[in-house]
Structure formats: structure tokens, C-alpha cells
């Protein structure tokens, strides 16, 4: 399919004899919010790791923005425009909130190692521009009041939002969110849904969401793909997915023959 930002074409990965993801075909368009759901162990996070270059597919292909991604490392893919968050929050623990975002902005900084040593005008202007970018991002996510605090000291929900802000600092075309609602209470979940909508509308990027939480997925995704045992068993709008008997079966088990 042309026009898609992310194209998975029968992407497969095997670990020894186990096929964790089998012939997964999935497209995400440039302005779409797509959910990837499935029961525990269905291969959602593995699919995620395929897309972000942590694993290389053993079969099939993945293309991003028409580039084949085979052989690219995670940092190369980030450069191409794929940003991600992690299921278990992975902030830079020894840095402040500000520096966490600043670290991610550097992908697009105009000055490098020589400027950092020379500390000339180019460096000072570059650092000022970086600071402005960081502060704008922190403002969007209401995190500017924490700018000097250690990232690890933030409340859980704020850490999640900081992770999203940090990912956006790399100026991605596609944002991958790995179970952002994990461990959140209902209020935090509502807050998160608002944040994700805001990201999509304000930054005009595609979002692929791996999620356990039905309320969140059904609430915000335009399209949902369902994985079970590494195989895509359904794809469609939230309404279609809700009524799909295969999906119900995967989640609740086979109905007993009466």
C-alpha cells in the first residue's frame, strides 16, 4: 500500500523454534492513531522491538517512510523519525527533567564536539535555541515547573508524560507508545488519553500504541490491530473490534458448548 508511513509486510521473527511474531502485515498512515492490542504474550512488545530496530526480523520486511529498515540500529531509526517510549519507564535517572529533554533534542542540534570545546558564538546560540525548544516542549506537557528536579523524583504520571515529551524532542514522524497506561489509576488514564490526543493534534504525527487497557485503546484509537500468539487475528475500527468474535475469544477464551 502506498502512502503509508510505516509498512510491515509479513514481518516475522523467530527465537529458536518459537515464532514470536508471524507474518504481521500492518500499515500506519502519517496522521493515524493506531492501536496494537492482544492478550499477554501475544507478541505486541516484540512487534514494537522489530519496528524500532531492537530486533531484526527473520522474515518479511519493514519500511518506514519508504526506507527499508533492515539492518538499521535503534539510533538510526530515531534519526529517520521513529521515536518511542518504554513499557518500564526509562528516563535518564541522574539528569534533571530539563536535561532529559535536552539530551533528546540533540539529534537536531547544529553544533557538535568542536563547538562544545570552543564555546564560541555558534555554540552559545545553539544552546539557547536548544533551551527554547526544551522549554516549549515542557510547557506543552505542563512540566516546566519541574525543570530543575531530578527526573526520577517525579510522580508516576508525570514521568510517563516526560517520556513522551522526551520522545517528541527527537522530532519524530511516528511515535510508538509501549503500554503507556501500565500501572496508572483511572484519573491518570484519563489524563494520558488527553495527552495522547494532544500529541496527535498538536504535533501532527502518527501514533502507534501498544496497550493492554481497553478503555484507553477503544477511547482514542482510530484503528486497532489485534495480535494473538504472534498472529494478527483482526483489524478494524474500535466498534468492529469490540464485536469481533475472534477477538472476544482470544481475550475471554472459547465459549463453552452448552
Amino acid at each position, binding site marked *: 500500500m502506498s502512502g503509508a508511513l510505516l509498512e510491515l509486510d509479513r514481518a516475522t521473527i523467530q527465537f529458536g523454534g518459537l515464532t514470536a511474531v508471524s507474518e504481521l502485515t500492518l500499515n500506519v498512515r502519517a496522521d493515524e492513531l493506531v492501536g496494537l492490542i492482544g492478550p499477554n504474550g501475544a507478541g505486541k512488545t516484540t512487534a514494537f522491538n522489530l519496528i524500532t530496530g531492537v530486533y531484526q526480523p527473520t522474515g518479511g520486511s519493514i519500511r518506514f517512510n519508504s526506507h527499508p529498515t533492515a539492518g538499521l540500529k535503534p539510533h538510526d531509526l530515531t534519526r529517520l523519525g521513529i521515536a518511542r517510549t518504554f513499557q518500564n519507564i526509562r528516563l535518564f535517572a541522574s539528569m534533571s527533567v530539563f536535561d532529559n529533554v535536552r539530551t533528546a533534542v*540533540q539529534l537536531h542540534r547544529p553544533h557538535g564536539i568542536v563547538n562544545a570545546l570552543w*564555546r564560541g558564538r555558534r555554540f552559545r546560540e545553539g544552546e539557547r535555541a536548544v533551551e527554547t525548544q526544551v522549554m516549549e516542549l515542557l510547557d506543552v506537557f505542563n512540566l516546566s515547573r519541574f525543570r530543575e528536579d531530578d527526573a526520577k523524583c517525579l510522580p508516576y504520571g508525570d514521568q510517563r508524560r516526560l517520556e513522551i515529551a522526551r520522545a517528541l524532542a527527537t522530532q519524530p514522524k511516528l511515535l510508538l507508545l509501549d503500554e503507556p497506561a501500565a500501572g496508572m489509576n483511572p484519573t491518570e488514564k484519563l489524563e494520558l488519553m488527553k495527552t495522547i490526543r494532544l500529541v496527535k493534534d498538536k504535533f501532527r504525527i502518527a501514533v502507534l500504541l501498544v496497550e493492554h487497557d481497553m478503555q484507553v485503546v477503544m477511547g482514542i484509537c482510530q484503528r486497532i490491530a489485534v495480535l494473538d500468539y504472534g498472529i494478527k487475528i483482526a483489524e478494524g475500527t474500535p466498534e468492529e473490534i469490540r464485536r469481533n468474535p475472534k477477538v472476544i475469544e482470544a481475550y475471554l477464551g472459547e465459549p463453552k458448548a452448552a
Partner: protein
Amino acid sequence: MPAGAKRYLLAAIFAAVLTSVFSAHFNRYYLGISIDIAINIILAVSLNLINGHTGQFSLGHAGFMAVGAYTAASLTWLMSAASQSPFLSALLFAISLLAGGALAAGAGLAVGVPSLRLRGDYLAIVTLGFGEIIRVFLQTTDTLSRKAGGDGIIARMFENMGGASGMKGIATLTNLGWSWALAAITVFVVAALVNSTYGRGFIAVHDDEVAAGAMGINPTRYKVTAFVIGAFFAGVAGGLYAHHKQFLSPSGFDFMRSIDIVVMVILGGMGRTAGVIVAAIVLTVLPELLRGFAEYRMIIYSLLIIALMMARPQGLFTFGKRTVRT
């Protein structure tokens, strides 16, 4: 790091050179210790870039120091005929130090590229092995030159290195000015690098390599960069050391020398430049203060280090926040 950091650097270099002019009036013993301190600051601060800021564990700093020391000393020996005027000899010394640093940096690159895929203990073992290779190689330089025969310049250079019995008669070129000016430059380079948006990458790799990769940071590249810069300054420190002690022996660059520098970094609080500088000073002066205890000196020194580690495992001087904003 304040905006006018470059001005502080120039002031520090100027002060070092100026003080050096009057060094003839100073007590020679204290003068020697002062130069030792500066050399140790260079070693500790440069290792801190690798072990502290970037979170790798290198035990090869003595090896890089040895590369720099023997290279610089051999160069000044080769060019000794040309060094009649003080200006010319200073220039030759600068070139020798730079060459020593460059060769050490090259060694850092050669060791770093294959081994920085390894983490923690494994990297420590590889770098340890590297240091030993250098030391054992230096022990055999005289035999090597005899085996190779001939009286070419390389053979004579190796002969001069003296193998296990050591390299003697190195010109005294290191003084207060050189050592402290270079210490100031080292501190500036490491601090300026780390306290920049670029330099946040080192700390990101230290904190979480996977997350750093996801932010577009190439962890291997940052690790190799830290390694090469660290090795360069270790090489420069080696060159200063050679022209300060006038004598080099391979056994002076053994594993324990590397450990000494690692202890300075840990005691100073990994990744805290100011703390590491203080630790380098303390750990240089301490053995001197303990000279009164004669043969018990090193035992007491070790006990003091154990006590310090138990009292402040996070490092002696870790009160403020680790990260300084630019």
C-alpha cells in the same frame, strides 16, 4: 559551567606559567609533589570521562599513560641534538607531548572499537589485559632491538627504552607551568564537553544505553569518543611524568597504577569533576604525609582508603547536584 569558562582557562594557564618562572626559588621537594598532583589530576579527570561520566569501567589508564610516556621520552631523546635554545626545546617538548597523547589516543581507538561492545566486568578485563600487554612489551624492548639487529633509528630508539631495566636519562622538561597548564586544559576539555547538549550524550549512555539509543544517540560512538579523549590525556600525562621523573620503568605502569587512578575517580565521586580533582590532590599528598611511618606507609594508606570507602561509598565530595547546567 559559567559562560566565561574560556577566560578562566586562559587565566589558569597564564598563572601556571607565571608561577613556573619563579619556581627556582621553591623547595624542590614541594615543587616535585606539586607536579605529581597536576599529573594525577590529568589522569583522574580524563579517566573520569570514561569511568564516571560515560559509565564504562576501564582499567587500562596506566597502559595509555605508558604509551604516552615512552613515546614522548623517545621523541625528546631523538631530537635532543636540536634542543639547544630554550624556545626550541619547549616547542619540541610540546610536540612530543602531543605525539604521546596522539599515539595513546590511537591505542585507545584500537582497544575501544572492539571492546566497547562489552559491558562492566568484561570491559574491565579487556582493558586490564591491554595494560599488561603494553607493560610486557615495554619490558622486552631491549631484546627486541637486539633481535632485530642493525643500528637504524628504530632499533636505537628501542635500545634506549631499556627493556625491564628501564629508560634512563630523560631530559627534565616538565615544570610547574607545563604540568598545571595541561591540568587546566584537561579539566576544561572534560567539563566543557560534558556540560553541553552534545555532552549530555555521555551521561545518557551512562544512565541507560537503550533509552539513549532510542533518543538517536549512538552509544558505541559516544563510548569510543570518551575512550579516545581519555586515552589522549593519559598519554599527555605520561609524557609529563617521563620528563618529570627522568626515568621510566615498565613496572611503574602496572595494574596497580591503573587502580590508583580508578580509586581517585571513585573517591571523588564518579562523574563529579571537582570531587575527582580534590581526590587526586588528597591521594597524592597522603602517601607523602605518611613517609614518617616508613615501611608501614602503604599499609596505613590502604587502611585509610578502606575507611574512606566505608564512610562515603558514594565518593568523598558528592554534596551538590551532579549535573551542572550550562
